[in-house]
C-alpha cells in the first residue's frame, strides 16, 4: 500500500506546498490555542488572588473630625467607633468569612510611597482599613452591602478589588473568542485548501482517473489513493507545524523571563491543555484526509 500510487500524485507541484501550508496551519492553530490557555490561566490566577476579597476604608478626619473639632484624639476615637460599627455589620453578613481591621503599621506600609519613609508622626490621621474575606463560593451583592454600610457608617467606603479586573476580564474574553475564531478559521482554511488541492489533482490527472475507471476501478479505489497521498503530505506538514510551535512557545517563554515582564509563564498548561495542543495536528490530518476523500467521491460522481 505504501509503494508507488497508481496515480502519479507524488510528482504534483502541490505536494510540498500542501505540507508547508499544513505546517503553517497547525503552527498557527497551536499558537492561538496556547495563547488562549495562557490568558485563561493568568486570568484564573488573578481571579484567585482577588476573588473573595473586599476592602473597607474608613476615611480619617473627614466627617468625624468635622464633628469633633480639632482634637485629634477625638477624631481617633470616632474612627475607632466607625471601624467597630463596620466590623459588626460585616461579621454579621452571611457571605463574610472574616473581617480583620488592619493595624496602623500595615496602613503605614501602604501609605509609605506617598508620605515618605520613616515612622509617621503619631498625630497624622491615616485612613483605617478593614480587610474582608468572603466565604468561598458565596455570592455577594456588593451594591446592597455598600448601601447597608453607608447607612450605618457614613465614613466607610467599600472597595471591591474585583471591579478593576472587569475590563481585563472583558479583554481576555474577547481575546479568547478571537483565538477560538482563529482556530475555526484555520480549520476552514485547511478544508478549503485540501479541496483546492484535491480538485486540482483530479483535474490534472483526469486522464489517468478515466483510465483507472475504464479498467474497472471503483471510486473508492481512486479516493483511497488521494486520501493516502493527502495523509502523507499533511502528516509531514503537521509534524513540522507542531515542532515549530513548540519551539516558538519555548522561545517566547525564555524571552518573557529574560525581559522580566509580568507575562505569565508560557508552559504551565494542565494535562488537558497539553492534550488539546497535541490533538491539533492529529485533528488537522484527519480533517485533511477526510476532506480529500469526500472531495474525490463527490467529484467522481459526475464522471461516467
Amino acid at each position, binding site marked *: 500500500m505504501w509503494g508507488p500510487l497508481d496515480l502519479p500524485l*507524488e510528482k504534483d507541484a502541490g505536494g510540498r506546498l500542501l505540507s508547508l501550508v499544513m505546517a503553517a496551519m497547525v503552527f498557527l492553530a497551536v499558537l492561538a490555542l496556547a495563547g488562549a490557555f495562557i490568558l485563561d490561566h493568568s486570568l484564573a490566577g488573578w481571579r484567585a488572588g482577588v476573588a473573595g476579597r473586599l476592602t473597607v476604608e474608613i476615611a480619617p478626619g473627614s466627617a468625624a473630625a468635622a464633628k469633633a473639632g480639632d482634637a485629634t484624639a477625638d477624631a481617633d476615637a470616632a474612627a475607632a467607633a466607625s471601624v467597630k460599627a463596620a466590623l459588626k455589620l460585616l461579621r454579621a453578613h452571611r457571605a463574610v468569612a472574616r473581617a480583620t481591621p488592619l493595624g496602623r503599621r500595615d496602613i503605614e506600609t501602604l501609605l509609605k510611597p506617598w508620605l515618605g519613609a520613616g515612622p509617621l508622626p503619631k498625630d497624622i490621621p491615616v485612613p483605617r482599613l478593614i480587610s474582608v474575606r468572603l466565604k468561598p463560593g458565596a455570592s455577594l451583592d456588593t451594591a446592597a452591602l455598600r448601601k447597608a454600610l453607608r447607612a450605618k457608617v457614613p465614613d466607610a467606603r467599600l472597595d471591591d478589588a474585583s471591579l478593576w479586573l472587569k475590563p481585563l476580564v472583558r479583554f481576555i474574553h474577547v481575546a479568547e473568542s478571537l483565538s477560538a475564531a482563529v482556530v475555526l478559521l484555520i480549520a476552514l482554511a485547511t478544508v478549503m485548501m485540501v479541496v483546492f488541492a484535491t480538485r486540482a489533482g483530479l483535474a490534472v490527472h483526469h486522464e489517468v482517473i478515466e483510465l*483507472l475507471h475504464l*479498467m474497472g*476501478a471503483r471510486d473508492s479505489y481512486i479516493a483511497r489513493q488521494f486520501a493516502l497521498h493527502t495523509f502523507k503530505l499533511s502528516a509531514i506538514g503537521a509534524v513540522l507545524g507542531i515542532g515549530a510551535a513548540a519551539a516558538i512557545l519555548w522561545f517566547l517563554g525564555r524571552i518573557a523571563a529574560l525581559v522580566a515582564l509580568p507575562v505569565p509563564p508560557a508552559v504551565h498548561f494542565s494535562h488537558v491543555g497539553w492534550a488539546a495542543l497535541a490533538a491539533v495536528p492529529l485533528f488537522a490530518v484527519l480533517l485533511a484526509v477526510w476532506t480529500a476523500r469526500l472531495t474525490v467521491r463527490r467529484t467522481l460522481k459526475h464522471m461516467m
Partner: protein
Amino acid sequence: MIRFENVGLRYGLGPEVLRDVSFHLEPGSFHFLTGASGAGKTSLLRLLYLAHRPSRGLITMFERNLAEVERRELPALRRRIGVVFQDFRLLDHLSAMDNVALPLRIAGAKKDEIRSHVAELLAWVGLEDKVNARPPTLSGGEKQGVAIARAVITRPKLLLADEPTGNVDPERALRLMRLFLELNKIGTTVVVATHDRRLIESAGKPVWRLQAGELKIERR
C-alpha cells in the same frame, strides 16, 4: 453478446461522428474495423468500452441494456473488457510490470499471483528484459507490447484493440496478431481497429468498414 441498434454519437454540439450504426457481435467472434482517419473507429470502440454513452440508439451488452445500467454497476462490466488504446495510455511512473499488473490490482488479485502471471505474459510479447523499465524508456513498439499485455492480462470476455500494431515491425505485428487469435480461440470476442491491410489479409476474418460515421459490413 453485443447489439447496437441505430446508435448515433456526437461529441458535445458537434456533428454526428457515428450515424445509425447497427450490428450484432456474437460471442467468440473476431472482427476487424477499418476506415479512413477520422472515420469514427476509435469513437465506436469508446462506446464498446463504456467510456461514452451514445447520443441515441440502443446498446445491449452482456445481456444488459446499457441505458439502464447504473453508475455503480459499471466497474463490474468494465472488468470483463480489455482495451488496447491507440495512444497506449501507459502510466509513466510505473514499471512495465506494474503497468501490466494494474487491472489485476484493481480487481483485487493477490500479489504473488500477479507477479508470475505478468512476467509470463511480458515474455510472450517479447519484453522479458524490459520488466522493470518505465514507459518513457521504452521504444514505440515496446510500449505497444506493454499496452497489449495489460489489455489481455485479465483474460477479458471482450478485447478491443485500437491500431495495436501501428508502431511495431511486421514480424512482431504478426506475432501479436497470433496472440489475439489464440485468445479468440479460447472464447474471447475480439474487435481490432486498424489501417494495416496486410494484418487484415493475414488473419482472414470479417472486416467492418466505417465510412464517414456509417458502418459497412464487408465480409462475413
